[in-house]
C-alpha cells in the first residue's frame, strides 16, 4: 500500500464537501474517482495536493504521516496534480514552465543558464513526442491543448509517487488523451499511483484498475473496473436506476423550411474559412471536429464576438452588425469557458440570471431587488438549480449547477436562437440529462440551436444535422440517422 487517507473532512459553511472519507491506494494502481458534480471529488484531491487544508482526518504516504502545508511542499514530497484549469504561466517560456520550482538544476553560480535549460527541455519534449513545441517560446503562444500537454510533461518529469489528474481529458483531443494515458501507464510501471477524475465513464473503465465512487461528499464504494459496466457505475453515482433515455430518440422528424439564421462566406484569417450554412426553425445543428478545427471560433463569430471576421450573418432576413443586433433578434451564446465568459462568480445567482433580462424586468427603467429575486427564483427553479437562495454567489456552485445558471440566463430572456459551445463540458450525467431534455423541449417549442461539441456521441444523439470542421473549413455535412457512429464523423475530421 502506498497511501492511506483516513476520515478526511472538508466543510464550506454548511456544505459538507467531503464528509468523513477514508481511502487506500496501492502502489502501481490507477484509481479513478467518479461522482456527480458537487460530490466532492475535486475537493478531496485538492486536500491531497496541499491546495486546500482539511478540516479533519489524517493522511499517510509510504507509511509516514503526510501533511503538506502548500502545493509546493506536496510536490516535494512526491504528490503532483494536473488541475482542470490551465495552469501554465503565460509570459514564461515553455522551458521555464516545465522547470518551474526547479531553477537550481540549470543555475550555475547564481546565473540561469538558458541554453542548458532549453536543451534539457527540448530533450524532454522530444521524448514525449511533442516535436512541434519550442522550449524557448512563450507558453501563451500555444493552444489550450498544447499547454495542457506541457503540463503533462512537467508532471511526468518530477516522477511523482502520486499523480493526480483532475478532469483533464475534456480539454484534450484523442492524441492528447493518448499522451495522458501513456504518462499514466508509465507512472504505474514505476510503481507509483495515479488518481484520476473523469466524467467519461468509458475512459475510466478502459484506463483504470479500480474505481472509487463518491456521492454528496460521502464514499459509496471502491470496486475493480474488471467486470464493471458504465450502467453500473452510473447507477452507483446517482444512487438510483437511471432510465435508458438520455439522448433524443426520434428520427426522421421533418424540419421546418423556415431559415432563421444564415451564414454566408464567413472568414477569419488563421481560424476558419468559407463557412456557409443555414439554420432552420426548430433545428439542432451540431458543429463537430477537433478542438483546433475552428468550430469554436466560428460559433463565436456567429454571435459577433470574434475579431477580423468578414462575411455575413443574416437573421430573419436582416444583416447583423454587432452583438447588440443579435440580442435584439434573441440570440444567446453559452461559452465553453464557463467561469471566464458566462458567469459572474462573485456576484449572486440573482444578478447572474437577471443581467440579460432588464428589458423585461425594468420596462420603466427601474428595478427593485425584490422583483429581481422573485424572477431569478422562478427561473432557477425551472432548471432545479441546487442552491441556498438566489443571493448565493454563483462561484460557490458546482460545475453542473453553474451551467444551469448560465443556461437560465438565456432562457429567461426568451432566446430564440441558442449558440451553445460545449454545453455539457465537465458535467456529470445527472445534469447532462437535464440539459439534453431541455434541448429537446426547446426544439419542440420551435427554438433553434447551434451546438458545438467535441463529444461526438452527444452530437450524434442530439443534432438534426452535423457540420464537421477540419482545418478551419466545413469538411462534411451529416444528416441525423439511426446508424450514425463515431467512426463516420472521425473519418471526416482527420
Amino acid at each position: 500500500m502506498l497511501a492511506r487517507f483516513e476520515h478526511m473532512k472538508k466543510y464550506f459553511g454548511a456544505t459538507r464537501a467531503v464528509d468523513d472519507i477514508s481511502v487506500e491506494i496501492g502502489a502501481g494502481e490507477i484509481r479513478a474517482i467518479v461522482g456527480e458534480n458537487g460530490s466532492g471529488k475535486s475537493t478531496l484531491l485538492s486536500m491531497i495536493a496541499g491546495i486546500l487544508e482539511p478540516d479533519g482526518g489524517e493522511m499517510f504516504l509510504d507509511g509516514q504521516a503526510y501533511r503538506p502545508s502548500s502545493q509546493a511542499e506536496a510536490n516535494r514530497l512526491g504528490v503532483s496534480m494536473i488541475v482542470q484549469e490551465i495552469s501554465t504561466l503565460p509570459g514564461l517560456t515553455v522551458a521555464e514552465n516545465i522547470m518551474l520550482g526547479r531553477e537550481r538544476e540549470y543555475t550555475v553560480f547564481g546565473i540561469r543558464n538558458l541554453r542548458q535549460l532549453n536543451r534539457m527541455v527540448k530533450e524532454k519534449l522530444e521524448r514525449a513526442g511533442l516535436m512541434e513545441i519550442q522550449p524557448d517560446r512563450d507558453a501563451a503562444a500555444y493552444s489550450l491543448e498544447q499547454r495542457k500537454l506541457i503540463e503533462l510533461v512537467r508532471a511526468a518529469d518530477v516522477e511523482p509517487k502520486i499523480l493526480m489528474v483532475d478532469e483533464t481529458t475534456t480539454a484534450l483531443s484523442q492524441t492528447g488523451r493518448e499522451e495522458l494515458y501513456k504518462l499514466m501507464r508509465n507512472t504505474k510501471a514505476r510503481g507509483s499511483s495515479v488518481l484520476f477524475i473523469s466524467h467519461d465513464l468509458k475512459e475510466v473503465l478502459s484506463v483504470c484498475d479500480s474505481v472509487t465512487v463518491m456521492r454528496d461528499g460521502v464514499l459509496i464504494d471502491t470496486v475493480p473496473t474488471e467486470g464493471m459496466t458504465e450502467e453500473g457505475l452510473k447507477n452507483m453515482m446517482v444512487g438510483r436506476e437511471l432510465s435508458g433515455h438520455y439522448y433524443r430518440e426520434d428520427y426522421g422528424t421533418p424540419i421546418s423550411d423556415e431559415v432563421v439564421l444564415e451564414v454566408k462566406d464567413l472568414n477569419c484569417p488563421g481560424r476558419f474559412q468559407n463557412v456557409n450554412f443555414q439554420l432552420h426553425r426548430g433545428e439542432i445543428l451540431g458543429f463537430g471536429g477537433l478542438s483546433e478545427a475552428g468550430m469554436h471560433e466560428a460559433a463565436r463569430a456567429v454571435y459577433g464576438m470574434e475579431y477580423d471576421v468578414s462575411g455575413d450573418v443574416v437573421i430573419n432576413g436582416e444583416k447583423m452588425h454587432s452583438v447588440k443586433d443579435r440580442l435584439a433578434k434573441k440570440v444567446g451564446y453559452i461559452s465553453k469557458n464557463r467561469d471566464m465568459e458566462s458567469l459572474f462568480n462573485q456576484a449572486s445567482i440573482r444578478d447572474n440570471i437577471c443581467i440579460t433580462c432588464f428589458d423585461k424586468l425594468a420596462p420603466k427603467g427601474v428595478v427593485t431587488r425584490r422583483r429581481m429575486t422573485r424572477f431569478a427564483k422562478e427561473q432557477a427553479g425551472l432548471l432545479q438549480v441546487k442552491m441556498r437562495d438566489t443571493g448565493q454567489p454563483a462561484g460557490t456552485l458546482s460545475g453542473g449547477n453553474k451551467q444551469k445558471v448560465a443556461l437560465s440566463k438565456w432562457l429567461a430572456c426568451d432566446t430564440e436562437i441558442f449558440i451553445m459551445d460545449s454545453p455539457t463540458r465537465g458535467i456529470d450525467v445527472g445534469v447532462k440529462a437535464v440539459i439534453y431534455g431541455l434541448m429537446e423541449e426547446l426544439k419542440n417549442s420551435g427554438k433553434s440551436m447551434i451546438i458545438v461539441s467535441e463529444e461526438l456521441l452527444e452530437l450524434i444523439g442530439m443534432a438534426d444535422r452535423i457540420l464537421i470542421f477540419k482545418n478551419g473549413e466545413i469538411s462534411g455535412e451529416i444528416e441525423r440517422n439511426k446508424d450514425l457512429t463515431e467512426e463516420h464523423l472521425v473519418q471526416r475530421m482527420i
Partner: protein
Amino acid sequence: MQNRFRKIVESSGPYLGLIFLTIALTILTGGEVIAPGNIKLVLEQSIILIFASTGLIFVMTMGMLDLSVGANICICCYMVAKVCQVNIPLGILTALLTGILVGFLNGVLTGRYKIMSFLVTLCTRYIINGLMVPLIAKEAVTVPFALYSYDNFGFKITVLILLVGAAGCLYMFTPFGNRVRMIGSNELGASYSGVNVRQVKIGCYMICGAFGAVAAFFTAIRTGTAALNTGSDMMFNALIALVMGGFPARGGAKARFSSCVVGGLVLSILTNGLTLLEMDATLQQFLKGGIFLLIIVLVSEKKRSGGGRLRLRLRTES
C-alpha cells in the same frame, strides 16, 4: 475566525467605525467634536467630499480608478469663478459641461481604446494641471461676490440630498447600476451577456466628471478662489472615503452605494477631530495613508495558493 471577522468588517464595519470614531474623538477633545456648531461644520466639510466620492463610486465599482478627480475639480472651479463673472447660470453650466467632457475623455480612452484607467486618468490629471498653469499660476481667480449667497447650509444640504439620492437610485434600482456592478465582477462575462461595456464605462466616467463639477462649484463658493492647488487633495481623499465606507478595493458585485456617504462622513469627522486636536496637517496625511492601508489589508481576501504553482481559483465544491 478570520473569515467571520472579515465579514463583520465588511458589513457593519463602516458604521461601527463612525460610532467608535465619534466617541473616541469626543473623549479626546473633551466634547468639542459633538458641539452643535462643530457638527454643522463637519457636515459642511463633508459635502464636497461626498459629491466627489459619489462620482468616483461608479468608476471604482467597475474596478477602475479616476486619479483626475482633483484636477477636474480644479478646472471646473476655474470655470465657475471665471464665467460666473459674466452670468451665474452660464457659469454653472460651463463648469458642468467641462466636468462631463473630462469624464467623457477618460471614458473614451479607457472604454474605446482599452487603456488602463490608472494610466489614462493619471495623464489627464497632468494635462489638466498643465492647462491650468498659464491661467492661474501667477494669480488665483476670485469668485464673484454674488455667488456667496449660495453658501448657505440649507441650500447645500438640499442639493446634496437631491443629487446623491438620484445617483443612489441610478446605482441601486436601474439596469445601468446593475451593469456597472456586473462589469466590476467580470468584464468579459458582461460583454458576452450582451452588456455594452464601452458605453457603460463612458457613462460612468461622465457621471464621475459631472459630480466633480458639482464638487467644484461648492469648493468655489466655500474657498472663494480658484487656485492651482484647488482640489489637489481630493483625489486621495475621495478614495480613502470610499474605502473607509466599506468599499471593496477592487469594486465588483459586493460594492454598496452607502460607502460614499458613510465614508465621506467618517473621513470628515476624522479630519475635523484631528484638527481640533491640533495635529499637524502633514502628520494627518501620514495617519490617513496608514489607515487606508490598514483597512485594505484587513478586508482583502486572503487566498491560499500553493507555492510555485499557481492556481488562480479555488472551487468550493465538486
